[in-house]
């Protein structure tokens, strides 16, 4: 290689690179101490019509130093509340208030206040969909009452209340009484012409003279307005059909006491069928496995005959939960299950005709529910803690 040419070229490259470094000023550079990390957002209806309150929960780190090995310093949080007509302008106000720019990629929670949700969420939701900083995996909640109160409750475990709320939602898997909805799911439901969006509910309960937030139940939207709610058990009826029940307890009276079955896993298969005369029908098949959790009677439930009876009984309970929720949504006219989309996917030619009439079709939709349950084990003991008793009857 010609050393002169190489050196010349090398000098040119070095000059270009150096000048690039000097003139850039690093536009995208953000030092960690110039940003406020937003952990959760809440939107409430404002006092004046057309206004909203935006609450941003920001993590406030305490400066490190001092003892080196004391572990991670406890992070405090800060709720910043601002009023305005839409989210973007309010954000600019927040920035000027704090002196630091809000940083959204770590936002985990979006809570809509009840009043605000009743008036329609689409307009303010758009910012969270469009901005490249926000992510689609943010959990959505509807607060019974004001979002600001829900975000201000004293924390049980973690530093910030919103993290608490997320944790509570995730632990809901144990009881299956609230759905886990991300912005992505909300968006999918909102762009569908027939499906109704849902979101888990956060409510505030009094515990003596202290208050705490509780996550249970579902809020149902019609279009983008909140219209109704399901309680915990009804939510489970909804989750059975969606196949999202992961764990829980089925309680029912049996013989001379109560029996609790612990759900191990559950699956659901939903099939849309177009009957020859053009009416739509949906077949829902739920398969569930459970263990005997606890029993309150003297009878030994471990025989095959008993187990079969338990299985049948629990299947009936599940079916009734499903049908109850289904009926409630039919009355409301909200297709939260997404049956309409199912027909669109499987019968897209006929769907064009059905689409506009779906509200009525849904009200009269024939839904055939079959539940198959299986009782697996009885736990560590077979017989209850009673002296053995003859089976009655």
């Amino acid at each position, binding site marked *: *290689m010609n*050393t*002169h*040419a*190489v*050196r*010349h070229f*090398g000098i040119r490259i070095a000059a270009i690179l150096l000048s*690039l*470094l000097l003139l*850039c000023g*690093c536009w*995208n*550079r*953000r*030092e*960690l*101490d110039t*940003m406020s*990390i937003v*952990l959760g957002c809440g939107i409430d209806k404002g006092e004046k019509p057309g206004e909203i309150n935006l609450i941003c929960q920001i*993590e406030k*780190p*305490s*400066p*490190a*130093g*001092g003892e*080196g090995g004391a572990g*991670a*310093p406890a*992070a405090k949080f800060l709720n910043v509340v601002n009023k305005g007509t839409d989210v973007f302008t309010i954000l600019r106000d927040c920035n000027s208030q704090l002196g630091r720019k809000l*940083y959204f*990629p*770590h936002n*985990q929670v979006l809570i809509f206040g009840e009043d605000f949700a009743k008036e329609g969420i689409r307009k303010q939701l758009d910012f969270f969909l469009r901005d490249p*900083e926000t*992510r689609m995996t943010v959990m959505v909640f509807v607060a019974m009452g004001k979002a600001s109160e829900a975000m201000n409750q004293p924390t049980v475990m973690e530093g910030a209340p919103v993290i608490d709320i997320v944790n509570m939602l995730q632990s809901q898997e144990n009881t299956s009484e609230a759905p886990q909805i991300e912005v992505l799911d909300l968006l999918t439901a909102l762009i569908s012409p027939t499906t109704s969006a849902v979101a888990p509910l956060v409510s505030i309960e009094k515990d003596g003279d202290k208050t705490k937030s509780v996550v249970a139940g579902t809020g149902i939207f019609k279009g983008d307005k909140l219209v109704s709610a399901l309680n915990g058990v009804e939510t489970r009826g909804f989750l059975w059909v969606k196949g999202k029940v992961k764990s829980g307890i089925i309680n029912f009276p049996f013989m001379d006491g109560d029996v609790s079955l612990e759900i191990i896993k559950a699956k659901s298969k939903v099939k849309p069928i177009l009957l020859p005369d053009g009416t739509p029908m949906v077949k829902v098949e739920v398969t569930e496995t459970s263990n005997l959790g606890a029993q309150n009677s003297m009878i030994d439930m471990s025989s095959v005959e008993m187990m079969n009876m338990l299985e049948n009984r629990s299947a009936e309970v599940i079916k009734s939960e499903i049908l109850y929720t289904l009926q409630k949504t039919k009355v409301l006219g909200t297709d939260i299950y997404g049956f309409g989309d199912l027909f669109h996917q499987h019968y897209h030619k006929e769907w064009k005709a059905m689409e506009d009439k779906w509200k009525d079709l849904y009200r009269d939709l024939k839904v055939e529910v079959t539940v198959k349950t299986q009782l697996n084990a009885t736990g560590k003991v077979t017989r209850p803690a009673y002296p053995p008793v003859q089976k009655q009857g």
Partner: protein
Amino acid sequence: MLKNMLNKLSLYLMNKQLNAEQNKNNPDASKINEALSKSLQTNLNNLKTIMSSSNDFIVREFSLGLNQGIHAGLVYVDGLTNSQTINESIIEPLMYKSQMVPLPKDKNIGIEQVMQSLLSVGEVKEIAQIDEAIDAFLNGDTVLMVDGCPKALQISTRGWEKRGITEPSTETVVKGPREGFTESIRVNTSLLRRKLKNPDFTLEALTIGRKTRTVIMIAYMKNLADENIVQMVRDRLKKIDTDSIFAAGYIQEYIGDAPFSPFPTTHYSEKPDVIAARLLEGRVAVLTDGTPFVVSVPMFFMECFQTGEDYYVSYFFASVMRVLRYVSFGISVLAPAIYVALTTFHQELVPTKLLISMASAREGVPFPAALEAIVLLLAFEIIREAGIRLPRPVGQAISIVGALVMGQSAVQAGLVGAPLVIVVAITAVSNFVVPTLSDVATQVRFLLLLLAASMGGYGIVIGLLLMLVHLSSLTSYGVPYLSPYAPLHPRDLKDSFIRAPLWMMISRPTALAGKDRKRRNITAPVKDPTSKP
């Protein structure tokens, strides 16, 4: 264009000027092309003048033959010769036994043959020029001149103090041979001979260096090495025009391919088994007198991550260690850059909890992360360099003071953030896992850090692409540097980032030679005959 021309012009003029100065000032003694004269006295006087009658330049005149009729003279340099050989094998037989041998009438012819039959030394050569004679005794041989004879005899009597064969300090092994090369080239060739008892093992000698006249030897296996590569080595060595060759590093720079690249294109080693193995792969080695490091070419990038020991321990462990070396190199080059990029540009990529603790660590720190990183890296380089130069007793104190106390206090004073100290520490430690590339890693690390500080993750990508472009266009003696990764030779991948079992590595590297590809036969490991099928 203009700059290019100006550059060329200035270098050319400078060269010309230096050459002229040199030819005016000292005519090089080694360029004397005179023949030896017939007269002994003339020869001896010439030599004494050339050697400036140095203290260790010994001239021994004596008489041979019946009646002591023939005058002869012996010249040698004390300290470079084995005096026992001179006394017993040269002087004694010549002085005493020559009296019993009839000398030819015509003194001009045949005297050398007679001498040769009297001398009981192994290597005897005839020389006729003065510079050959000078070369001879400066290398430790003895030159025997006879009055009336235009030729002289060069007798091999080399012997000097040298370091014994010890374990090389730069390449320690746990489970392999511990012999290392020494500074004497003959010892080194003997070590190689003992490993490669094959007539194909060829040694060619050259002398390089105007003033130092260092002996260089090219070693290769005749039927394995690519003749083009050997010729390239010869040509490049012959082109070296310098005053001195003191170490293998000089040779490496002169015969290496890319002088402006931070990456090494020539390999060096201190261990004979490593060099012997490389010769068997078809490579060419260059031995330099005066240094225990032997250079071998061509070199691949992946060799920086190989050590001789890989072949002596179990292949699974060796493979894991190889992968670990690649990962360590990656860490030592990328860690500070990634840290800076993540904390200043791409905070969304860090898990939330980690980000919160990093943010708390950076509260109250006055400098931007990039500057901190540069300062800490510089501090580490200073400590490292100081550690090499310090005498041993003081070294311990400095490492404790420097590393622990400074680091701890800096964090507590709020000058740097604790995570950064950890990052720099990990970088520093992984730097030394791959010693061949530790200087490369330092340079690349700074470049990537600067790029990351200005453009974040994109800067790192650009930097890595630049490095990749550079590496993939680099060739070592015509062989692509990134073999077997870049021109993909799957057969050769067995010894790259893993070390396949020895019985699987049956062929020599594809990129090096084509003549004799088969290293060994595939034989699966022997099954224990007593175990159940």
